[in-house]
């Protein structure tokens, strides 16, 4: 049900894009390069340029999320395991949209529990918003008295593939099986 919704949305989105953009501008869309400069768990600023030469699998989320985030990170972990020697060509990156709380709770222990190759980033609010805008993704804090600390986060749950030159290549919608992500990556490596 949710999956079909995503498929319909994706289809509607591409039709919209197609109708709205003349051919020349579609090339512009393909060439967009998301950028970020965010702090890792050791306090170092990590920038998008650092990962040139490798593919990046980028996911936005928060570590207090019990359903969506573990599901996607488990899939990323499975993909990294199944890539074998090609895993060196792919860098998975988890960007926190709830950076202050995630830094307090421990970013590294969260990402490492899924896979040691995943880099967790949690910048300040301004840098986080800038990164999300650059990826053209949405996130928002939702006040919820019943949630831990009185709030939850809603966010774009897709996984984004960035190419070795920093170009945005595609998104894998939430729920894409690890086997499909793996097959797509292998066709590119």
């Amino acid at each position: 049900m949710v999956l079909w919704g995503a498929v319909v949305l994706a289809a509607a989105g591409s039709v919209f894009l197609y109708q709205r953009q003349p051919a020349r501008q579609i090339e512009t869309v393909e060439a967009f390069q998301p950028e970020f400069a965010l702090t890792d768990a050791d306090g170092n600023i990590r920038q998008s340029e650092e990962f040139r030469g490798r593919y990046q699998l980028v996911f936005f989320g928060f570590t207090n999320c019990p359903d969506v985030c573990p599901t996607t990170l488990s899939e990323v972990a499975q993909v990294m395991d199944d890539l074998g020697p090609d895993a060196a060509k792919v860098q998975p990156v988890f960007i926190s949209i709830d950076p202050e709380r995630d830094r307090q709770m421990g970013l590294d222990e969260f990402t490492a529990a899924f896979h040691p190759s995943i880099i967790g980033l949690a910048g300040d609010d301004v840098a986080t918003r800038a990164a999300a805008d650059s990826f053209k993704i949405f996130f928002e804090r939702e006040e919820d008295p019943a949630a831990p600390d009185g709030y939850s986060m809603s966010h774009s749950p897709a996984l984004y593939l960035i190419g070795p030159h920093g170009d945005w290549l595609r998104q894998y919608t939430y729920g894409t099986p690890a086997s499909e992500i793996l097959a797509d990556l292998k066709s590119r490596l």
Partner: protein
Amino acid sequence: MRNIFLGSLAMVLFASAAQACETAALGDLAIGDAWSRATIGATRPAVFYVAITNAGAQDDALTGITTPAAAMAMLHETVVKDGVASMPHAMRVQVPAGQTTELAPGGYHGMLMQLASALNEGDSFPVTLTFEKAGEVTVNVDVLSLRSEGPTCDDAS
């Protein structure tokens, strides 16, 4: 350090899936495939998934869950709308007659907050489910690996 970590990771990956997979019965309802994921410490919420088969002719609804493992347990639904995922509180989960209703990744789930202690792979804990009509029933929930994507019951029974 790295070797120690990889070693423990390998143990997690190769640990046998010893899920008890009990099925509890409550009138026309059969409740099974109850599982959860291991947590990192006790400060982040845990999750609860289950399958409920209603073999009767009357619709029912799951209205609440409680467990000694968490001070606060609620039903939530992951909703992906216009490309954005949110997790509203679900007041009730319909359990229609003649159907199996699943709390599963990406849909309805129980959110277990204020854990008494971390959930470790291989643990199990009880959850009491309250239904609008059928009443209450308690099932044992198996804690699987953090990376599990579904229950690992052998359907040999």
